[in-house]
């Protein structure tokens, strides 16, 4: 299929515009440049509206706003898009139009309110107008609607595909496109129509005919066989679901394992960090307890005994002791006399020089001591008093030492806490701002691993059940055939049934084999194109359920997802082109298609724009690119040799309701 031209009239911001497309094999690119808002997207959507009636805009009225303003009341006007194309050497003109009328109140409404008939489709085949039914058939043959999103796509479409890719969604749409492009759709349909579960099929019709008017044994056997076949189908459904669930869980589990492996150091760092934090808190807690202990000690031992200690120390400095000349004691003074105490007390001065008030506890202490000495006529034995004093000093010294130790311990604890904090900071540096939560990933890995184990058990159990029920079904079939063989009138039906079963089995096996081959081929081509567009070393794979993923589960960036889309579209075209050379009976006819893209390059850097600009014209028969001026300049530079036609879209005097297109030579 080749696009020849597109004409739009009173369509959105265009009053009358036309683009003739480049069709030369070597110059197959039509480049249309325009600023934002000039109307590039309108044009790409005009293709889909003309071919399928898809509006693509929120606003339902497609009639040009200026035309609406100028339209007299009670008068009508028409919007239309016409596409000229060649298909199998036949010229086609496809015209879709929509009529509007302005009411007496100045409002514009559709002339035909019925949704199904709101617009008119006309198709001319070599200038001969086709009737409505033929027109629809021909249109479906030229480009089926389900394929069109891959050949006429705009930014919104790419965004949608990109999101699906990044979420790694199963895509029936992708599977259908691949089947359709490589021509397996008819085969898929045939196997479904021959035999399926629960729906009308040739196999089911034959069975109904066989059991109708047959013996009660045959009827019973058939009914039982049908029940068993339904049971088998249900088991197969569960098996299929479990396998999908198993595959998905296994994939997610490996993703988590892969993530955890990639962040194994981080995981260790996070664990160590948690431990260090706990240690730090513990050290601080202990330090706090020690401080409390110290406070208690201060108030109990120091505050109450501090002065006594000073006094004892001072007295023990021997200043007031008389030397016991008769003994060999090393003490200079042996006795403390009442006179000496009187002297101290009367001087009203402490031995340290501070003045004493009479209610001072130490004054009282000495006074009591002196009184005691007076009472005890022999005087107090100084050695005994000294021992008392020494005891006081020692006890207080022990308290001091204990307090000193406690303070050292507190210092050590604070030092340890600081050390933990420094280590935590070091680890944070190593993790370099990493935000992930390892625990969460471990939890998810565990969940998926549980699902994998559960589904494994289910699969195992269902396989056993399936084998058992299959054996029963085989027996019942054998029995049923015997009953039918007895009834000569059913013989022809039995032959047909056998033929259908065999054909279904053959087609099914061939289809599965072909699909596997095609998926592998598609994956290979997709990879090669992706390597050319984006970069090497990023392995793509297509799963059984047609999910495109990266083999090492590294996740996709936006630019990578867009690169995959471009690679995907190019692969589809590549496969279609390749398919043309393979003529096999089971395959549908296939066709090459042009590619029409709206601003596809905004997400890429210059290198990638160059890659895409080189690949697209080689893979597609015909390329039509609507592009904004900045990206367009690069594309123009890299596609220079392949550009056959160039256009630019302009706004007439900056008006958003009046754009025009002109060819640039």
């Amino acid at each position, binding site marked *: 299929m080749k696009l020849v031209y597109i004409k739009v009239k009173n369509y959105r911001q265009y009053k009358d515009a036309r683009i003739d497309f480049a069709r030369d094999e070597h110059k197959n690119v039509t480049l249309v440049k325009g600023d934002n808002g000039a109307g590039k997207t309108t044009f790409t959507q005009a293709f889909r509206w003309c071919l399928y009636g898809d509006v693509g805009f929120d606003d339902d009225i497609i009639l040009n706003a200026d035309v609406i303003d100028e339209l007299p009341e009670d008068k009508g006007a028409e919007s239309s898009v016409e596409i000229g194309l060649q298909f199998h050497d036949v010229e086609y003109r496809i015209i879709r139009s929509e009529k509007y009328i302005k009411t007496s109140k100045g409002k514009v409404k559709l002339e035909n309110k019925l949704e199904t008939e709101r617009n008119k489709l006309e198709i001319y085949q070599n200038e001969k107008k086709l009737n409505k039914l033929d027109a629809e058939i021909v249109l479906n043959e030229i480009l089926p609607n389900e394929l069109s999103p891959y050949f006429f796509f705009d930014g919104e479409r790419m965004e949608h595909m990109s999101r699906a890719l990044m979420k790694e969604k199963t895509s029936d749409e992708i599977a259908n496109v691949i089947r359709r492009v490589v021509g397996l759709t008819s085969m898929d349909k045939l196997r479904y129509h021959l035999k399926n579960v629960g729906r009308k099929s040739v196999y089911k019709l034959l069975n109904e005919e066989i059991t109708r008017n047959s013996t009660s044994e045959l009827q019973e056997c058939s009914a039982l066989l049908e029940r068993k076949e339904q049971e088998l189908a249900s088991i197969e459904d569960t098996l299929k679901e479990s396998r999908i669930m198993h595959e998905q869980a296994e994939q997610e589990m490996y993703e988590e394992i892969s993530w955890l492996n990639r962040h194994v150091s981080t995981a260790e760092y996070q664990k160590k960090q948690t431990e260090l934090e706990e240690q730090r808190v513990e050290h601080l807690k202990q330090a706090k307890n020690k401080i409390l202990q110290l406070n208690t000690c201060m108030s109990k031992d120091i505050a109450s005994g501090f002065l006594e200690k000073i006094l004892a120390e001072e007295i023990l400095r021997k200043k007031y002791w008389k030397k016991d000349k008769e003994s060999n004691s090393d003490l200079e003074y042996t006795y403390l006399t009442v006179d000496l105490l009187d002297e101290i007390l009367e001087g009203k001065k402490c031995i340290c020089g501070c003045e004493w008030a009479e209610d001072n506890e130490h004054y009282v202490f000495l006074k009591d001591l002196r009184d005691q000495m007076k009472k005890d006529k022999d005087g107090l034995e100084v050695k005994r008093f000294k021992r008392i004093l020494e005891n006081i000093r020692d006890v207080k010294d022990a308290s001091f030492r204990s307090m000193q130790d406690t303070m050292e311990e507190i210092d050590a604890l604070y030092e340890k806490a600081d050390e933990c904090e420094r280590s935590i900071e070091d680890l944070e540096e190593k993790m370099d701002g990493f935000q992930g939560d390892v625990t969460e990933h471990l939890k998810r890995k565990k969940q998926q691993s549980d699902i994998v184990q559960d589904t494994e058990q289910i699969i195992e159990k269902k396989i056993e059940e399936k084998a058992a029920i299959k054996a029963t079904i085989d027996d019942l079939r054998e029995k049923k055939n015997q009953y039918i063989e007895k009834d000569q009138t059913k013989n022809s039906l039995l032959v*047909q049934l056998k033929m259908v079963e065999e054909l279904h089995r053959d087609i099914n096996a061939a289809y599965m084999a072909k699909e596997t081959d095609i998926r592998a081929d598609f994956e290979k081509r997709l990879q090669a194109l992706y390597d050319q567009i984006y970069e090497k070393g990023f392995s793509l794979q297509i799963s059984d359920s047609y999910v495109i993923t990266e083999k090492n589960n590294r996740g996709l960036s936006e630019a990578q997802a867009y690169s995959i889309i471009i690679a995907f579209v190019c692969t589809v075209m590549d496969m279609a082109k390749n398919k043309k050379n393979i003529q096999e*009976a089971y395959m*549908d006819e296939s066709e090459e298609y042009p590619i029409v893209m709206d601003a596809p390059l905004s997400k890429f850097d210059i290198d990638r724009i160059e890659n895409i600009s080189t690949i697209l014209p080689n893979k597609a028969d015909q390329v039509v690119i609507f592009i904004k001026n900045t990206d367009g300049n690069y594309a123009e530079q890299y596609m220079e040799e392949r550009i056959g036609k160039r256009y630019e879209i302009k706004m007439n005097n900056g008006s958003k309701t009046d754009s025009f297109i002109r060819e640039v030579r």
Partner: protein
Amino acid sequence: MNCGMSDEEWTKKKNELFLEMIGAEKKNLRTKEKNDSKMVDQLRTILEEVIQ
């Protein structure tokens, strides 16, 4: 057990049936016919014609 047919005849019939049926499916795909029930009836008729 090929209902009186030789293996060769049986395979020939099967191929013939396949080509007829896939042809009908391809035509159906082109003509945008989405009615599965009608298609099954059509295939049933093809089967009867080919086998008889």
